């Protein structure tokens, strides 16, 4: 039974209040005397820190409950009630959402503090923090929602904030276009999500449309309905979490400020899709075929974006494609019903990816907003702290034991091998190698060798403490988070998996120890080979390469954006202009114009009677009189 508490509603509410407060203060004072940035910084950062405290409280409270009754609920108010549908704005804290809550609030708070330094001196400092708080509030609604509808509210909220923050530097039109692209592509995914929700409701929504009720009624669904719902929900996930075919917005989203990329497009928003699949594990576990579709989509996305990452010049784009690739891993995990492995990778990825993005932000800040890696070089002497933390993050990303990324990635690959999907496992191992290659290509080019742009190198210096302390904290997380889910082979007890077990419908794979050892050996070998090739090519300082042939094709991301433009955007625009110019003007307007024409004709006909000769008007009178007398004569009889 779920315990009812009353502080759950405060967790999303605090950042929303913060956003409103900062926003109103900014709107009221931005044309007059500007308030000091420090005030906004304090106002904006209190909410995330408070939510982190509350998240810890939630975790401790849940820990105090027995394992099979670990759920805290809070129904704030009934949102709407129509017919047999009753949706309330309610929150549910169970092991899965408490884990998500912990790392979302933790990384959120750290990135808020980091942004104080990164966005210092910016014109719309307050606006940034208002949007960032709004984002945090929406993400918390998403994570804590007690049903698909409340989750969707948060889903849309984070999409909105993503758009607002990507197009934050709105003077440059390309940033605004990137924001539009993110929002529109997300919307396409959301259409699938809504359809999935609708089908789910139509099937079993009558007796309660929240997770707990759905879980108890899940056995009433026909396999076809379950498959359809799961596929449609996954379409939503491809949009939000940037999988094939809707990943095209994430690299463009790097147009936003770097803290935004760190928070939204690495640690939190993009993992919402994985969270959603894990939430609906009680549905996905019924249809392994759909799970296989999810897994293959994920691993293929991982492969394709790893190829893109190997050829990018912009430091943020490398990390963006890396994010897409790692998300592919997570989907491979949850697709193969290894839900806790996927969620654990979400957890560790939040730490090291946020760390890498913040470190990249540090580099960009030091070099005065230079983002091309071929203009950097030899920065390890100038930015030692950034270098060390980024090295830790890269080792975690590349899957070097004993960093966190190794354990989480290995969990997923082991599940693939243990459940007999060797194809997925092989592609995963290949991608692990490629990950190591492109990550260390970036590290070697940016930090090793000699500087390629002497002027920028001269003025580079370590950023202030408000930016470096979060880096250190995240580095600690990236180092040690892996030990939370140590498998039995290494003497651990898989605490995270056991913690998450009540929330997920998972059946643990049991395979022989030898499979585990093969998986681990393959992962380590891939990592070693990748880093070795990167060292050979870039370790001693390399020049900017000229891309041709396949590498040029990969540099331009297989021209997928151009393909979408030709296949979808242009026909859609053509249809739009055809409708606008032809159908709107002639077809939909036709009844109106017909009426107008009719009135005109009517009018012109009657105009003929207005001859202007008074005698003719007298004739009209006499005609009327005679008709009237004729009628009267009839009635007289």
């Amino acid at each position, binding site marked *: 039974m779920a315990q009812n508490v009353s502080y759950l509603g405060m967790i999303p509410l605090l950042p929303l209040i913060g956003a409103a407060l900062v926003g109103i203060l900014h709107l009221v004072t931005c044309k007059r005397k500007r308030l000091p940035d420090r005030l906004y910084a304090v106002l904006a950062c209190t909410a995330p820190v408070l939510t982190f405290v509350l998240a810890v409280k939630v975790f401790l409270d849940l820990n105090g409950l027995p394992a099979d009754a670990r759920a805290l609920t809070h129904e704030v108010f009934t949102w709407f009630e129509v017919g047999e549908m009753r949706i309330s704005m309610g929150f549910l804290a169970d092991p899965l959402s408490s884990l998500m809550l912990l790392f979302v609030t933790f990384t959120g708070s750290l990135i808020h503090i980091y942004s104080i330094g990164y966005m210092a001196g910016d014109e719309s400092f307050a606006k940034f923090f208002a949007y960032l708080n709004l984002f945090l509030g929406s993400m918390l609604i998403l994570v804590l929602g007690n049903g698909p509808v409340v989750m969707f509210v948060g889903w849309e909220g984070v999409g909105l904030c993503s758009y607002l923050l990507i197009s934050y530097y709105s003077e440059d039109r390309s940033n605004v276009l990137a924001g539009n692209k993110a929002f529109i592509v997300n919307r396409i995914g959301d259409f699938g999500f809504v359809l999935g929700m609708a089908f789910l409701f139509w099937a079993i929504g009558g007796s309660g449309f929240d997770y707990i009720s759905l879980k108890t009624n899940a056995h009433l669904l026909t396999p076809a309905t379950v498959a359809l719902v799961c596929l449609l929900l996954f379409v939503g996930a491809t949009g939000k979490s940037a999988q094939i075919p809707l990943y095209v917005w994430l690299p463009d989203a790097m147009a936003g400020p770097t803290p935004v990329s760190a928070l939204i497009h690495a640690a939190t928003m993009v993992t919402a899709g994985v969270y959603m699949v894990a939430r609906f594990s009680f549905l996905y576990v019924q249809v392994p075929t759909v799970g296989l579709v999810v897994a293959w989509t994920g691993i293929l996305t991982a492969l394709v974006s790893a190829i893109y990452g190997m050829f990018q010049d912009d430091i943020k784009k490398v990390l963006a494609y890396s994010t897409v690739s790692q998300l592919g891993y997570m989907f491979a995990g949850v697709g193969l019903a290894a839900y806790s492995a996927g969620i654990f990778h979400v957890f560790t990825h939040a730490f090291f990816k946020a760390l890498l993005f913040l470190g990249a932000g540090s580099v960009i800040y030091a070099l005065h907003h230079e983002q091309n890696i071929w203009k950097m070089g030899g920065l390890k002497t100038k930015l030692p702290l950034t270098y060390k933390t980024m090295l830790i993050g890269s080792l975690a990303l590349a899957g070097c034991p004993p960093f966190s990324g190794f354990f989480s990635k290995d969990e997923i690959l082991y599940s693939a091998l243990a459940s007999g999907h060797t194809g997925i496992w092989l592609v995963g191992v290949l991608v692990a190698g490629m990950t190591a290659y492109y990550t260390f290509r970036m590290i070697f080019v940016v930090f090793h060798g000699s500087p390629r742009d002497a002027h920028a190198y001269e003025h580079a210096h370590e950023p202030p403490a408000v930016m470096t302390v979060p880096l250190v904290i995240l580095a600690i997380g990236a180092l040690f988070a892996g030990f939370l889910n140590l498998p039995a082979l290494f003497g651990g007890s898989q605490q995270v998996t056991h913690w998450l077990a009540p929330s997920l419908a998972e059946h643990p794979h049991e395979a022989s120890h030898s499979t585990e050892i093969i998986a681990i050996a393959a992962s380590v070998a891939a990592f070693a080979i990748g880093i070795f090739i990167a060292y050979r090519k870039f370790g001693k300082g390399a020049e900017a390469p000229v891309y041709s042939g396949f590498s040029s094709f990969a540099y331009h991301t297989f021209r997928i954006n151009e393909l979408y433009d030709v296949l979808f955007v242009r026909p859609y625009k053509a249809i739009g202009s055809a409708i606008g110019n032809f159908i709107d003007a002639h077809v939909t307007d036709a009844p109106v114009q017909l009426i107008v024409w009719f009135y005109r004709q009517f009018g012109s006909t009657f105009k003929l009677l207005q001859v202007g000769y008074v005698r003719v008007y007298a*004739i009209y009178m*006499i*005609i009327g*009189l*005679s*008709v009237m*007398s*004729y009628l*009267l*004569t009839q009635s*007289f009889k």
Partner: protein
Amino acid sequence: MLSQWLFYAFATIAVFSALGLILSRHPMNGAMWFVITLVSLAGLYSLLSASLLFALQLIVYAGAIMSLILFIIMFLNIQPADIPDEKGRWAYLLGGCLAVVPIGLLLLKIVKTLPEGEIDIVGNGFGNVKSVGLVLFRDWLLPFEIVSILLLVALVGAVVLAGKKEMNQ
């Protein structure tokens, strides 16, 4: 008997001269025909024992009004070129007959509902000046006064309308 023959005579003359009025081209001819109509109507009034009105019809209508009209017709010196060339008047007349017939039929029908009555010449002062005056100045005093104002208005109006140019010069 005699009154009957007189009635038919006067009626025929009246109808034919009315026809002459509406069919004649030059307004002068029409005016002449109209005078004959008015005189025959006066005769009909006398057959109905309306002695005062018989006199007034001849004095006012056939005398004053018609002479005014004739005077204006002659004053304007209408040349044959000024008279409108009414080519379509027969068509209009035919159409007009068609339009007018229902009106007339209705009116005739209404009239038929009235009771029949003797209309011999009445004596004892019916229709003479004294009886008309008594009724006029007792029961119809207000309309009488208003009509006199109307005549004043007509007088002023006629002066204003027809004398405009001279007053401006």
